């Protein structure tokens, strides 16, 4: 059997090919492929899909076997070639099924579209959503303004999804679609229920107008931050860059700063604990992401070997974080 392998390898080498053994991470053999070393990872995944029709390319994850001292296996990147990883004939790659995938833009669209429909329901259909409660004939000004602000916010998010954001990954696990929609649609209902309730008590109009005005400014800042982030990498560029300009000169995740302050202002404008809870939960999640991003950037831009040193900046929320 060994001499057959040697023969096979020699035959392949004549054709300029090499054999790759794909195994599961527990060592079970899945498939063997004969490929040119110059093949891109992307095309390798297409070939693998040809053999295993269940696993379309975005579900495939290939890692190199762990070297001594490594705890995390190196994953193959679509844009690289097999030869970039120094793979020889007979090399082993570990395969992981990432599960059914869905596109980033698809998830973003559906998670933001829900709030656009759900929130207005409580404003326009109180007779169904607050059964048995006599609603006042007219909404308070702040309730109408809040509806406008909310709808504008989520329309902006959908527009950014298709016109601004450049996603670092193409797909995510399909469970995220379900989980994110539960979060956004659930909170839309929760906040709207209380703000549009027949027994809603409006705060002073000046408070509401000023707060929503500031919130709008925060939204514009947030948009500007998104545009800056989208333009950080030139087309085809990979790798992390230090964000600069506007608020990024002082804060790593200035986009989150603007978003949090926007929701704080919304909460003050409508004066509802429900909005406050929504703001807090969003703040907690963004803080977690911001800390991760900030440490990642500081780790990469360490000032050694000609790399820049990441400047001293707030993480997300001066003067607290």
């Amino acid at each position, binding site marked *: 059997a060994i001499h057959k392998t040697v023969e096979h390898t020699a035959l392949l080498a004549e054709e300029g090919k090499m054999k790759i053994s794909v195994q599961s991470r527990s*060592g079970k053999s899945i498939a063997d492929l004969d490929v040119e070393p110059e093949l891109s990872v992307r095309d390798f995944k297409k070939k693998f899909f040809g053999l295993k029709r269940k696993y379309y390319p975005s579900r495939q994850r290939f890692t190199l076997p762990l070297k001594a001292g490594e705890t995390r296996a190196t994953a193959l990147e679509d844009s690289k070639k097999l030869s970039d990883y120094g793979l020889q004939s007979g090399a082993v790659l570990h395969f992981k099924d990432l599960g059914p995938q869905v596109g980033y833009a698809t998830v973003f669209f559906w998670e933001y579209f829900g709030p656009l429909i759900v929130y207005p329901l409580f404003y326009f259909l109180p007779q169904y959503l607050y059964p048995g409660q006599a609603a006042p004939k007219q909404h308070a000004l702040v309730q109408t303004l809040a509806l406008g602000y909310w709808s504008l916010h989520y329309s902006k998010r959908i527009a950014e999804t298709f016109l601004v954001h450049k996603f670092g990954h193409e797909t995510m696990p399909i469970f995220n679609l379900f989980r994110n929609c539960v979060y956004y649609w659930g909170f839309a209902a929760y906040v709207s229920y*209380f703000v549009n309730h027949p*027994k*809603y*008590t409006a705060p002073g109009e000046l408070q509401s107008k000023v707060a929503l005005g500031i919130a709008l400014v925060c939204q514009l800042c947030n948009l500007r931050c998104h545009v800056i982030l989208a333009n950080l990498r030139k087309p085809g560029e990979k790798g992390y860059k230090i964000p600069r300009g506007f608020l990024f000169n002082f804060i790593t995740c200035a986009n989150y700063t603007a978003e949090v302050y926007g929701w704080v202002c919304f909460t003050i404008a409508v*004066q509802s*604990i*429900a909005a406050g809870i929504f703001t807090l939960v969003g703040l907690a999640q963004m803080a977690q992401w911001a800390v991760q991003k900030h440490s990642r950037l500081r780790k990469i831009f360490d000032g050694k070997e000609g790399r820049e040193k990441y400047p001293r900046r707030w993480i997300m929320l001066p003067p607290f974080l």
Partner: protein
Amino acid sequence: MLTMGLKTTHLFLYNSIQAVGWAVCLYKLAIAYSSMQKPDQAYAEAKDFAKVFQGASILEVVHAAIGIVPSSPAMALLQWAGRSHILYLVLDAVPQVQSSPASVVLLAAWSVSEIIRYPWYALSAIGACPSFLTWLRYTAFIPLYPVGVGAELALLWQGLPHLAARGAYSLRLPNQLNWGFDYKIFAQMVMVIYLPAWWQLYTGLLRARKKRLGGGGSKAKAE
């Protein structure tokens, strides 16, 4: 002692004190049981220790948040909140359920679990944990968990009508905060999530047990 750092000393002391507290709680329950006292009397004997040491265990959330233990702060908070809710907001607040056997079963299940768990943490912190204690820590939960969860659900179920009748922990509209909270609905949702959430925890612990103890004593297969 030896040259222990601040973190190790603190963890050793905290977990030892907790172990003692819950041991006393269990002792009080045992005395009450042996003198044939009714559940509400047994509860009256043990409750101060349970309340103090359960309250103090909020520190475990802080430990996770500052990173001196590997747990997730969110999980720690959730578990602390779940237990505290049952102890302070239900059991301690509704005298009627204190006469239910579930009150004693609850405190007993908690105490037994804690007199295993806390010594395990304390000794592990100083690297002096005997293997039988590790076995106990990863095995005792198998019967104790279902018993504890059953008692918690029973108490919530029994206590809810009384709490709902007096409108406890609830806020009604209209108010300046434009927010309402109906504790009865909240408690009902908690009861619905309890079993699936608890099942996830339980099976997670069973998996961790397999990893730690090697599945019934057999060595893990070589790859």
